[in-house]
């Protein structure tokens, strides 16, 4: 008997060792992600600072030049500077991503809060809708929305937002149910606060707080989906400089000019990776504080 007890004791101690320190500060990866995201924001707001060359400047004599010191990412079929096009493509790609996540949070928020505040019957009906939004693959849901709304950059952003709203609706509903039955909301009611004040100052902030890491992770996901749909020709169209449209444009020349495929995609991948790393870090921090 005692032998087993010793083994179990040892295992518990071992497990504690394996887990390491409970809270870790931001590591190198988090700082690197923040630096990259700062560059991405700079490229979106002031693209001319990073890429002074005009992204639409055609020069047929220098078509399909491989990457060099004059053209860092090479040139495309019309001799346009690929680096400049990728940098100038940041703004539409990022804006569509942000509009998507705003739509996702709005749809998720309306459904989730309706379920929480609307009483039993509404909650049951909304829960079924959320089930369906959740059961459907997000990208397919976005495609169905584009079929209904038509293809344009704005409808693309709305479609991607609706496509990813299921998860947010579910989380907001669950969080809302926890918050609205919590002790501090009961306390606020007993103190005689007006219902509107309780909703805006007590319930909503407590629902919103855990959403920040999800928001960060969600932008990355939305950018990947939206550029993917643009790549399929359902959003921003070439010759417009946008990451998905640049990839769509490069498809006819993949065998000829690898740089036209590699760099726009690498921008999507690096941006999405940085947002994932930052989102993960925020999630770990928030979870840690919730547990404490």
């Amino acid at each position, binding site marked *: 008997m005692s032998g087993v007890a010793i083994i179990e004791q040892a295992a518990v101690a071992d497990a504690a060792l394996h887990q390491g320190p409970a809270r870790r500060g931001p590591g190198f990866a988090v700082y690197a992600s923040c630096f990259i995201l700062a560059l991405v924001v700079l490229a979106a707001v002031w693209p001319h600072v990073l890429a002074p060359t005009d992204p639409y400047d055609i020069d047929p004599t220098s078509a399909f030049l491989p990457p060099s010191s004059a053209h860092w990412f090479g040139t495309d079929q019309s001799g346009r500077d690929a680096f400049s096009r990728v940098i100038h493509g940041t703004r539409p790609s990022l804006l569509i991503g942000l509009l998507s996540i705003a739509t996702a949070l709005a749809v998720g928020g309306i459904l989730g809060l309706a379920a929480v505040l609307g009483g039993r019957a509404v909650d049951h009906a909304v829960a079924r809708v959320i089930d369906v939004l959740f059961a459907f693959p997000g990208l397919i849901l976005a*495609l169905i929305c584009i079929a209904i709304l038509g293809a344009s950059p704005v409808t693309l952003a709305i479609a991607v937002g609706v496509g990813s709203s299921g998860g947010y609706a579910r989380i907001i509903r669950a969080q809302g149910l926890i918050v609205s039955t919590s002790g501090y909301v009961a306390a606020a009611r007993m103190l005689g606060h007006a219902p509107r004040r309780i909703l805006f100052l007590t319930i909503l902030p407590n629902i919103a707080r855990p959403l920040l890491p999800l928001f960060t992770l969600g932008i990355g996901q939305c950018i990947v989906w939206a550029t993917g749909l643009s790549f399929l020709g359902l959003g921003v169209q070439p010759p417009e400089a946008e990451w998905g449209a640049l990839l769509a444009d490069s498809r006819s020349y993949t065998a000829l000019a690898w740089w036209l*495929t590699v760099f726009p995609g690498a921008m999507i991948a690096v941006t999405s990776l940085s947002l994932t790393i930052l989102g993960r870090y925020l999630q770990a921090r928030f979870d840690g504080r919730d547990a404490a």
Partner: protein
Amino acid sequence: MAQFRDLAVAGARRLATRLASGLLVLWVSVTLTFLALQVVPGDPVKIIAGPGAVLTPDAVAALRQQFGLDQPAVERYLHYLLGLAHGNLGMSYESQQPVTTLIFGQLGSSVALTLAALSVAWIVALLGILLTAARSPVWGGLGRGFEVITSALPDFWLGLLLITAFSFKLHWFPAIGRGLSGLILPALALGIPLAGFLGQITRQSFEDAMAQPFALSVQARGASDLRLRLRHALRHALLPGIALSNWSVGWLLGASVAIEQIFARRGLGALILEAVQRRDFPIIMGSVVLIALVYVLVNIVTDGLTFLVDRRSQAGEARA
């Protein structure tokens, strides 16, 4: 004997609950899509006739009647539900063929790609876990880094990179391939990002399992490290990944829309994309029905797999 009968009864009850909730998802999704398609601007007759077609009023009326568009929305809705119960999903606007025929024509290609991609994803994820999880921090960091990076990779970009490198530069695989050799690159493009997601989830539960007292007692019995990992820890670690099967299959279907375009494959993704581009609403409704059915089916398979892997759920069902 009585124990087995109890198990069968419990299993049947669970299956019935799954089917009922699946039917509900099917009904709600069909209804929501039908409602949404009612508000779409534009006349379906124009889509049926094709762009630029000039039709006499008689021809328009005939088309309306053929596709049931002359009837009020409520009647069309009930008619659709009735047809659905009989396995009739209507006619495509574009090709004027039954939607079920079109979907079944693409099913084989999509199922092959989905199974191949799922195999790639699980093999890569499990190899990563068995080699790097619960080892030194350096190995753990490498494995974790690989998983985060692959899960953030845009699948369509990975597909473009694979086709550029292995088809155009190295000529190892055909760019447009039928059969097995044409399946490898698309399965990798879909499977590698999915492996990142599955790996992250499995790693957590694997490391938790390896830190449990039972892991030490298995080691104390003299079992090898490989046996501990394969026979004992993996069994615990698989459950969260299996629970995500439904999400995985849905993710693969969504991602296959772009991958099928890149590798010039036919499949459900390509069918849905064409339906969206041409606004072929009967096909879109049909895809919604199909996805809801796949959701129900995968849920049932997931339940079965969980039951096989998790001895606790078997004991629980027998007692319940």
